[in-house]
């Protein structure tokens, strides 16, 4: 039994020494006494030696129920021999049985008490009968002694059992306390470890992190936040975020996030650092919600966008330069061609006498001037120099007038009231460019389908052709100015389309499949009583 060491080996051998001492005392003070050389004397010696052997036996062996039962049986036999040697029923030696039964009942093997009591009773009855054959079983001494053996066995077993239970409970409680203590220590260690880990994590993040409590007091700051704001951790922690000069705009966002309980994602906020330099920050602001569901603060994760802004500006600058270069080249080429015919026909005018020819030269010159004017229009549209004047436009009429002048097969379907708000000339230009592109992409059997419909507050116009389509690699560049795949293309057609659509707060999508055709989806704001 894996229970309390209530009767461990040491206690057992001590009790057995008491038992031996009692045996020797009883034998010494019995009628016969204990004398050297007599059997009783050797019995006491054997008993003593047996106990010394028992002390040497391993505890595991002693604790085995069969072994402990055998030990008690041995004790019963020794005591019975003592009873026999000291005069049977006349002697008080039987009292030692009570001691053995008590030891057996309270020992490791608590169940051994009753069998030992039975064995002791049988041996005692037999022994007394043997020494005094005439004695009756109903003799008062038997009637008292035998039941008492059992009573002692029951009582001591019960007491021992209760004791065992009590001790077991105590031990379990102690074990539980020990485990609880260990668990508390483990959790405390884990918490420290976790805190260190969190700190390391926060400190190693390349983005800035600050956390504030519900009152706006800064609780956590990482090194990147220190760097961006230009303040040391000690100058930020435990201070109200509003008290840090320059970062008030951030507080406004934090306050709004905590008030609404909603995260603010990818918000750009401009703050001032300690040196009063403007720092653009890209922020994600997330309210902290405690287990009770209440907002307990806010955590701000931000990136310093200064370098990105600088690179963007550099890129814009080089793009501007690149556009400027491309534009200069484009303008030079586009203008030189009509200029060549204007200048050429003007030179020829000097020598010409034929009136008809003169008129045709003048007509060529005027056409050249018109072309140059169109080019200037393109530049102005693209550079958005011209001010747009918005009016109500009937898109169906406008497209019909535009495509009607072109030599192309088309079908125009209108499923809604096609009214938009825009600048008529720009919108005409937009569809002229789109339809021109479609025409150029198709062969003589090509056909353009134009559908006008309303969709989510927009007027959606689909321009569908069955031309050769646009390769996927070109699709992403089609709105880039001066990007062209056409030998004579200026690369401004779709860039102008995009510009016009942007000026009208509209949007455009282009879907294309090689060999099948292209669909342009143009979304323009619906005309809404002048708004």
């Amino acid at each position, binding site marked *: 039994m894996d229970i309390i060491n209530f009767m461990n080996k040491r206690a057992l051998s001590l009790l057995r020494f008491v038992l031996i001492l009692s045996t020797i005392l009883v034998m010494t003070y019995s009628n016969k006494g204990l004398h050297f050389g007599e059997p009783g004397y050797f019995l006491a010696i054997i008993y003593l030696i047996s106990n010394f052997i028992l002390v040497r036996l391993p505890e595991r062996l002693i604790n085995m129920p069969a072994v402990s039962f055998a030990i008690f049986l041995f004790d019963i036999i020794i005591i019975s021999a003592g009873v026999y040697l000291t005069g049977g029923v006349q002697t008080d030696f039987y009292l030692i049985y009570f001691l053995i039964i008590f030891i057996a009942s309270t020992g490791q093997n608590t169940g051994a008490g009753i069998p030992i009591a039975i064995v002791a009773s049988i041996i005692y009855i037999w022994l007394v009968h043997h020494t005094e054959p005439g004695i009756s079983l109903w003799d008062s001494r038997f009637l008292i002694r035998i039941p008492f053996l059992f009573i002692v066995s029951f009582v001591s077993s019960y007491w021992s059992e209760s004791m065992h239970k009590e001790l077991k409970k105590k031990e379990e409680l102690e074990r539980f306390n020990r485990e609880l203590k260990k668990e508390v220590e483990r959790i405390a260690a884990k918490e420290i470890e976790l805190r260190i880990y969190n700190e390391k994590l926060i400190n190693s993040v390349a983005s800035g992190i600050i956390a504030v409590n519900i009152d706006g007091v800064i609780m956590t700051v990482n090194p990147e936040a220190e760097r961006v704001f230009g303040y040391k951790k000690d100058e930020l922690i435990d201070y109200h975020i509003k008290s840090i000069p320059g970062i008030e705009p951030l507080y406004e966002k934090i306050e709004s996030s905590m008030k609404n309980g909603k995260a603010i994602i990818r918000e750009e906020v401009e703050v001032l650092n300690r040196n009063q330099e403007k720092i653009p920050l890209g922020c994600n602001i997330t309210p902290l919600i405690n287990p009770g569901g209440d907002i307990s603060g806010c955590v701000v994760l931000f990136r310093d966008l200064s370098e990105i802004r600088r690179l963007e500006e550099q890129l814009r600058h080089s793009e501007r330069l690149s556009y400027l270069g491309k534009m200069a*080249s484009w303008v*030079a*080429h586009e203008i030189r061609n009509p200029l*060549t*015919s204007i200048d*050429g026909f003007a*030179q020829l005018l000097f020598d010409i006498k034929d009136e008809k020819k003169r008129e045709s030269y003048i007509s*060529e010159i005027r056409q*050249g001037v018109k072309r140059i004017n169109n080019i200037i229009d393109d530049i102005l549209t693209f550079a958005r120099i011209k001010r747009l004047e918005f009016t109500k436009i009937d898109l169906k009429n406008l497209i019909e007038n535009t495509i009607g002048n072109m030599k192309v097969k088309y079908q125009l379907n209108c499923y809604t009231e096609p009214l938009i708000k825009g600048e008529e000339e720009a919108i005409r230009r937009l569809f002229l460019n789109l339809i021109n592109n479609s025409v150029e992409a198709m062969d003589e059997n090509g056909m353009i389908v134009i559908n006008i419909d309303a969709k989510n507050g927009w007027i959606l116009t689909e321009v569908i052709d069955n031309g050769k389509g646009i390769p996927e690699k070109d699709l992403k560049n089609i709105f880039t100015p001066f990007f062209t795949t056409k*030998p004579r293309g200026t690369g401004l057609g779709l860039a102008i389309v995009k510009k016009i659509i942007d000026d009208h707060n509209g949007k455009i999508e282009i879907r294309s499949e090689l060999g099948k055709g292209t669909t342009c989806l143009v979304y323009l704001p619906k005309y809404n009583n002048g708004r």
Partner: protein
Amino acid sequence: MKKRILICDDDASIRAFLREALENNYEIVEADDGKEAVRLITREHFDLLITDIKMPGTHGLEAIERIRERNKEIPIIICSAYRLMEDDIIVKTSDVSAFITKPIEVPTIRKKVFELIGS
């Protein structure tokens, strides 16, 4: 018999101007792209080709290359809005006889044509 000049330019007004400037002394034939120019030169005899560079369809330089594969003798004048060596205008000088930048001076083109093929 007048000498024959093939004018290749996608811009009709330029072709018209060159025709007006030269047709008194030469027979003018027009092509509106490089492919047409190659086709005509392969079939017919011409004494001179005046061509633009940037054209839809077959590019002027590509046309010159193909023409040179068939005809190494014919003089070629390039008339371009771009300057020589500008952007992607890389011409093998052995292939062309003259390079004229637009706008074109009437005396210049007449003189150049005369130098190359006489009248």
